[in-house]
């Protein structure tokens, strides 16, 4: 035998495979103990060990779905360090204090214990881990072949226990939480506590159905206000929408004729990119990076308008919405891509004269050509970002109006009506495409929405899908229904082509004072059936 058996006498490759059986944290201890071990890991010629350690614990981040832009080169060491650090921080955070009383009722603000900025930055790696998870492949029929992801397992382990969930995800009951908690919660889906707590449901409803939470600054959608014209997801709002809609789905799912896999749900596994059904090759549209083409389902939740009024404006309404009554409607959407990158012909060609009321010609108003933003006489709200137009280009009257809305320029105030489909169909970003939006150009689509208690049962809609600056997938849809024009603004939870789908806020296109708004959820079908609702439960809709 060798004169002296010693770990450090072992050949390099054995040391490597030994270290790879250790957790990265223990590898660091070894590195610090001894120069020989250190040289195994730190090698100026290759980052093999860092890469191997990443691939031990995570999916290969270089792997991409078909048609997805190739990623940049990977800094394996930085990647591993950021993720392990997030794991350690996530495991060490103490459960935040959940405030007992609702924030509406408490007289003095509850002591806030938001995670320190350090944690917020560190933990923001966690959603990225989900976004980098393995891409499932699709069968020729478009069906997704399920594939386990190490990244999802990693996050599930981190968020597996009720203690970790309350520490990291928390609930809307805690005011002033870091947005990363809300974001993780929205990606994770309902926790065991969300399923049973009437107060969490109530607080989420109070956020979603309080009309002062919506406005031009946030595009009447789940976006942060005052982001210089760019739409950035407001994760606090999206989290509340997820809770409201998630609980509503659980209450209503029994009267829907949807298969298990078509039922909407938020789970980490579904909040991965590229998990939604892909279209068969014959039907797929070239360049449709968001997978818009095809069949989708949608649920819309709303409160009776009288209840909504009582809650928002009467001053004598209920104190909470714990026991509020909501209606849930299910629809089937069939969407077709119209154009990619450039607005469809009719979107820019002709503007309807402002004198023509939009309701006069029913048949084409649903599908009507939106107003051109360049024609100053049309009734159009246009939103520019600062990058698009400098301050000096505004005249004084406009500049005054901007004082209380610092980052949004209102050029034309709507007088009476707006054309459905005209709102925001064209924005300044179309004229100034960013690097990211060149890879993911705007997709313009049109389609039909089929409900069962609507009259007429089939309505037309149109919309667009954009890639935001932060990589979020932003949806916008307009439709006409029961004599009003509606607009929905939403964010796809989990990014490009996630099975979880889009959480969107619907509102009236005119956005008059005291107009209603509420949450809706759009997700892609996996089986291509038409969603049906049992009518007997819907008697209250006839009122």
């Amino acid at each position: 035998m060798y004169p002296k058996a010693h770990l450090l006498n072992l050949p390099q490759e054995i040391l490597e495979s030994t270290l790879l059986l250790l957790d990265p944290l223990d590898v660091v201890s070894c590195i610090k103990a001894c120069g020989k071990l250190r040289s195994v890991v730190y090698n100026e010629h290759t980052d093999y060990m860092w890469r191997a350690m990443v691939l031990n614990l995570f999916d290969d981040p270089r792997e991409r779905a078909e048609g997805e832009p190739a990623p940049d080169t990977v800094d394996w060491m930085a990647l591993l360090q950021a993720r392990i650090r997030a794991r350690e921080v996530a495991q060490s955070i103490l459960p935040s204090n959940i405030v007992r009383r609702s924030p509406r009722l408490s007289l003095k603000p509850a002591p806030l214990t938001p995670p320190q900025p350090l944690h917020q930055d560190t933990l923001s790696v966690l959603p990225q881990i989900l976004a980098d998870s393995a891409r499932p492949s699709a069968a020729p029929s478009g069906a997704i072949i399920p594939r386990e992801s190490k990244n999802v397992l990693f996050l599930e382990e981190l968020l597996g226990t009720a203690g970790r969930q309350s520490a990291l995800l928390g609930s809307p009951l805690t005011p002033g939480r870091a947005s990363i908690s809300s974001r993780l919660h929205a990606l994770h889906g309902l926790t065991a506590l969300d399923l049973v707590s009437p107060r969490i449901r109530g607080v989420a409803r109070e956020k979603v159905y309080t009309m002062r939470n919506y406005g031009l600054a946030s595009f009447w959608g789940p976006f942060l206000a005052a982001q210089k014209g760019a739409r950035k997801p407001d994760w606090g709002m999206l989290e509340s929408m997820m809770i409201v809609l998630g609980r509503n789905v659980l209450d209503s799912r029994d009267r829907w004729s949807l298969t298990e896999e078509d039922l909407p749900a938020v789970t980490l596994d579904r909040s991965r990119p590229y998990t939604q059904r892909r279209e068969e090759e014959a039907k797929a549209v070239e360049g449709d990076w968001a997978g818009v083409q095809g069949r989708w389902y949608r649920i819309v939740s709303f409160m009776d308008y009288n209840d909504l009024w009582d809650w928002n404006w009467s001053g004598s309404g209920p104190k909470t919405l714990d026991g509020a009554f909501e209606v849930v409607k299910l629809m089937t959407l069939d969407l077709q891509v119209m154009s990619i990158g450039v607005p469809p012909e009719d979107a820019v060609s002709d503007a309807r004269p402002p004198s023509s009321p939009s309701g006069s010609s029913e048949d084409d108003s649903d599908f009507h050509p939106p107003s051109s933003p360049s024609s100053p006489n049309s009734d159009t709200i246009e939103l520019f970002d600062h990058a698009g137009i400098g301050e000096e280009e505004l005249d004084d009257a406009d500049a005054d109006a901007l004082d209380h809305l610092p980052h949004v320029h209102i050029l034309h105030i709507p007088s009476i009506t707006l054309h459905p489909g005209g709102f925001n169909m064209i924005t300044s970003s179309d004229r100034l495409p960013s690097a990211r939006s060149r890879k993911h150009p705007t997709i313009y689509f049109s389609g039909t929405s089929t409900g069962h208690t609507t009259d007429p049962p089939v309505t037309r809609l149109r919309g667009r899908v954009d890639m935001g600056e932060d990589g979020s997938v932003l949806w916008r849809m307009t439709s006409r229904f029961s004599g009003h024009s509606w607009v929905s603004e939403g964010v796809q939870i989990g990014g490009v082509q996630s099975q979880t789908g889009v959480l969107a806020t619907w509102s009236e296109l005119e956005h008059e004072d005291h107009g209603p708004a509420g949450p809706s959820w759009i997700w892609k079908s996996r089986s291509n059936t038409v969603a049906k609702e049992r009518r007997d439960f819907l008697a209250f809709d006839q009122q």
Partner: protein
Amino acid sequence: MSITLISKEGAQFLVSKPVADRIGVVRDCAYGADFWLGYAVATDDSMGITLANVTSSILSKILVWCEHYKDMEPLVDGDSNMEFPEWDMAYIGHDMNQILFVLEAADYLHIPGLLLLACKGIADVLDGRNPRGICDLLGIVMDFSHRQEVDMDKENGYWRWFLHPT
């Protein structure tokens, strides 16, 4: 058919073919020649194979492993999350010296499954120790000056924040 293995000390071990098959060197030497020469070198028990680098005590320990795995496939590929069977972990134990002997023998004899298990054994011993603990375990002095240590912390960046207390 069986085959005789001879340890460094000259002790003879009679093993059956499935057990010997686990040992890459023996398999290649005794039966693999079949492939090249058209006939097997070892056709009967009369021939012994000398394993000059392996002591009797280690060889007998290794043969226990080969006997256990004569009918099933051992793990040959692992990562930091992998759980090894209980029997394996009990077999390899926590004695660093012993593991290293097994590891060197497994490397020499070409037994990938046992090699991985030995690596796992070492990893388990190292697991959860701080740098000083590892130095004590290996019987080495920390060979970094203070200055280098500071540099290394910088290199490791924010790792330091959650490193095991030293």
